[in-house]
């Protein structure tokens, strides 16, 4: 701490041995000068005297905590000592007279020294590490420059923590900057997004709808969520929609959702058409996105669909979920032809739509699920609606610039024919625009995960005591245990566990609330 760091830096930076030790204040420098054979005029006899003085000053400095000797020597030996002054920051033979005020603060004493220095070097007395206020000793170099070479204090304000008002201002700045960015590089005129979702009340509905709801809340464009519910509107669904904070339209659909995948697929298509008719009636304006409740959507999808003119197609990743632990046993040939699990537009080299890439379901033939909730892969059929987006004006009766390759919506599905995919809405399917870098970017994923159709789940996912297990589901994950309640094993936790399990399996015994330790039986309340 006493030593200046210059010798160290020199040693480290280069192997040159030009060490000018400047420790211990000016006295040390004088000593060094004598050692280094510099221009000091001191005779060897007086070197012991200087050495003792140096030692004394070192001790005093140690005691006080700063380089006392330097100040003392400046006061006493201002002319000569200064010329041989310690650090090398003196420019060649340039001395300027300046008046400075140096405030030094130590932990024990406060010493204020005001003195005039004819001094060409800049050094501040070292003080403790952190809490320094600004310390500058003298100016060096050219007359106009006020930038000092040498050691400076590290300026720290008394409360180096963020100010909440400034933090809010900074966030507002960032928001405005991002708004500008969107204006320059983003979509020029954002259109409303109309999201069509067919749904029905079942065990996994809350899971799927919650995920979709959160995705839609993050969409930065104005959005309307059109939810078509099979079997009429239910309170559970209505409650979820109300809590979502989104603008929604909840449409009841009279038919119930069938338990067969094929029939369910057809019913969903009819529900979507119903939604499209509602859009047409209400003349809703925007881009129609078909978001099935179990699908997962990326945010880039919603940015991309803003570009659609009339009808666009995006690439959908198909996640054929097996549902069982064992791998699908595929033949070697099947493994080779394992398809890319993507459905989407395929482009030719000039970037125009050349055809469709669909999911190859041949390797799965015969092993797919037929009933909802069966543990087998669920596959899409043909082209899924999720991969298409429409401009809602395409559905209106009258719209400016509506192309003639679009069929009138009323003409579709009237005779009860099957609407497999949105291409049936068109006369000429080749005018579909490929989106997402010509289908190269997969923007959403198609997934069908359902529990068995008769799975029980609490209404609205609120456990209202008491729960009555009227009919146990055939494949509950809990093992069959005895239905007796052994009273002598009350204090055994393991038994408590079993009892809880066995209670779940009991068909006729009513359920108690919490099991209180020491109670012989489950209590009715």
């Amino acid at each position: 701490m006493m030593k200046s760091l210059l010798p160290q830096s020199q040693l480290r930076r280069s192997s040159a041995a030009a060490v000018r030790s400047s420790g211990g204040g000016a006295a040390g420098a004088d000593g060094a000068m004598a050692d280094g054979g510099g221009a000091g005029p001191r005779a060897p006899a007086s070197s012991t005297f200087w050495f003792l003085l140096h030692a004394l000053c070192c001790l005093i400095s140690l005691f006080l905590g700063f380089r006392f000797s330097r100040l003392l020597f400046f006061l006493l030996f201002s002319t000569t000592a200064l010329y041989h002054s310690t650090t090398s920051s003196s420019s060649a033979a340039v001395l300027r007279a300046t008046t400075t005020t140096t405030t030094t603060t130590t932990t024990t004493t406060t010493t204020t020294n005001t003195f005039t220095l004819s001094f060409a070097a800049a050094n501040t007395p070292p003080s403790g590490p952190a809490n320094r206020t600004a310390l500058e000793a003298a100016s060096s170099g050219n007359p106009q420059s006020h930038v000092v070479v040498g050691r400076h204090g590290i300026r720290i304000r008394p409360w180096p923590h963020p100010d909440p008002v400034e933090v809010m201002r900074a966030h507002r700045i960032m928001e405005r900057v991002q708004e500008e960015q969107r204006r320059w590089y983003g979509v020029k005129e954002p259109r409303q997004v109309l999201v069509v979702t067919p749904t029905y009340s079942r065990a996994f509905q809350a899971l799927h709808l919650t995920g979709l709801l959160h995705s839609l809340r993050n969409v930065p464009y104005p959005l309307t969520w059109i939810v078509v519910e099979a079997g009429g509107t239910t309170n559970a669904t209505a409650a979820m929609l109300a809590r979502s904070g989104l603008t929604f339209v909840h449409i009841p659909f009279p038919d119930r959702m069938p338990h067969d995948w094929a029939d369910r697929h057809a019913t969903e298509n009819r529900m979507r058409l119903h939604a499209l008719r509602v859009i047409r009636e209400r003349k809703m304006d925007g881009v129609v996105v078909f978001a099935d409740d179990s699908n997962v959507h990326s945010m880039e999808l919603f940015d991309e669909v803003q570009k659609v003119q009339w009808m666009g197609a995006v690439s959908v990743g198909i996640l054929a979920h097996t549902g069982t632990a064992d791998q699908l046993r595929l033949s070697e040939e099947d493994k080779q032809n394992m398809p890319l699990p993507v459905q989407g537009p395929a482009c030719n080299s000039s970037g125009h739509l050349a055809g469709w890439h669909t999911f190859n379901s041949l390797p799965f033939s015969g092993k797919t699920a037929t009933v909802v909730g069966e543990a087998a892969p669920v596959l899409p059929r043909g082209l899924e609606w999720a991969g298409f987006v429409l401009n809602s004006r395409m559905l209106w009766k009258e719209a400016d610039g509506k192309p003639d390759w679009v069929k009138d919506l009323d003409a579709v599905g009237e005779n009860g024919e099957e609407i497999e995919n949105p291409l049936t809405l068109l006369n000429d399917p080749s005018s579909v625009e490929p989106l997402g870098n010509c289908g190269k970017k997969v923007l959403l994923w198609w997934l069908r995960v359902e529990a068995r159709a008769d799975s029980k789940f609490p209404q609205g996912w609120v456990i209202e005591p008491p729960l009555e297990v009227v009919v146990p589901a055939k494949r509950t994950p809990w093992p069959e245990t005895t239905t007796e309640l052994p009273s002598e094993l009350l204090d055994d936790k393991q038994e408590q566990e079993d009892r809880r399990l066995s209670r779940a399996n009991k068909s006729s015994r009513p359920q108690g609330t919490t099991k209180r330790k020491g109670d012989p039986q489950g209590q009715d309340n």
Partner: protein
Amino acid sequence: MGTGAGSARAMAAALAVLLLACSGAVAVARAQDTERIEGSAGDVLEDDPVGRLKVYIYELPTKYNKKMVAKDSRCLSHMFAAEIFMHRFLLSSAIRTLNPEEADWFYTPVYTTCDLTPWGHPLPFKSPRIMRSAIQFISNRWPYWNRTEGADHFFVVPHDFGACFHYQEEKAIERGVLPLLRRATLVQTFGQKDHVCLKEGSVTIPPYAPPQKMKTHLVPPGTPRSIFVYFRGLFYDTANDPEGGYYARGARASVWENFKNNPLFDISTDHPPTYYEDMQRAVFCLCPLGWAPWSPRLVEAVVFGCIPVIIADDIVLPFADAIPWEEIGVFVAEDDVPKLDTILTSIPMEVILRKQRLLANPSMKQAMLFPQPAQPGDAFHQILNGLARKLPHGEGVFLKPGQKVLNWTEGPRGDLKPW
């Protein structure tokens, strides 16, 4: 009467047209996402130097240039590589002339910053001797040095303190600019007002930053800028300045101590692989001084559209007459570092957006880079523009026969040894 009414009507029509044109121009300007850059020398960023000056390149023996690069090829990628690439650019440029009689400027291709330590740092200890030896060579072989004593010669000295040829500021100040270069024009990265090592009339250039590497890390410009202040680098140089207070004049340490707890400041000493991408997601990038006031951070901030916050008192920034840095960056005095958050959050919104528009100007980014091969508007061309703006040479450039100004034996004894 008729003429009076007619002239009044004509004037009204002219005024209306003028107003319409102004509003049209204003409307167009607001719709743009960039803005033209005009410095104190005018709208000169896109000038073409071809036809405005001629440069003659001396043929030096390869020990001054090619052999040094062959010895250590790291010279081509460190931040002082501008001297090598400038030579290569000039060799094949249209402003090169093979007839020295018609040249306006003379270039000496000597690479003084190519003597590297095993760790890649350039050692400046031999540089004065190398430069001196090169000047002796050209003054003996050709008469052009002696007729002006170097006043129409330019040298590229991109090292820490330019032609003071030392990495330590105190030693560099002590040495001063090499005496033989007192009349020549220096092209250097260092710039600080009223500093011994910034000669009057020098051309300040940006340090070399690898343009290809930066281009491969570009992200889409629509990526929202969600970091408020960004900085990666040292705050304390514990190897060379263990006590603190010398490195960066205490400014970097002050930044760390004041803002390490501030979530708006993404500052650390990490070396993340996403450094370039992060800069493109930041609104402000700190460019504090280090051991020298200049740093490649300025170039990176400009290329990635992040507003540079320059914390270096009295710094002279590259091409200061062509680029109005006060309008593009934020200057914070070293004493004001504790108030940095207040300063940055109280900049008016229009000012911030205007700075971003100026930074988005592609000619601004191009002016900071040294691409290979050279492209119009890049730093090579800006250097030549700067040299062209110094033409025609003034009165004192050409010496009378027999007049001598420079003292060849001036300087420390060690410099006089031949190389």
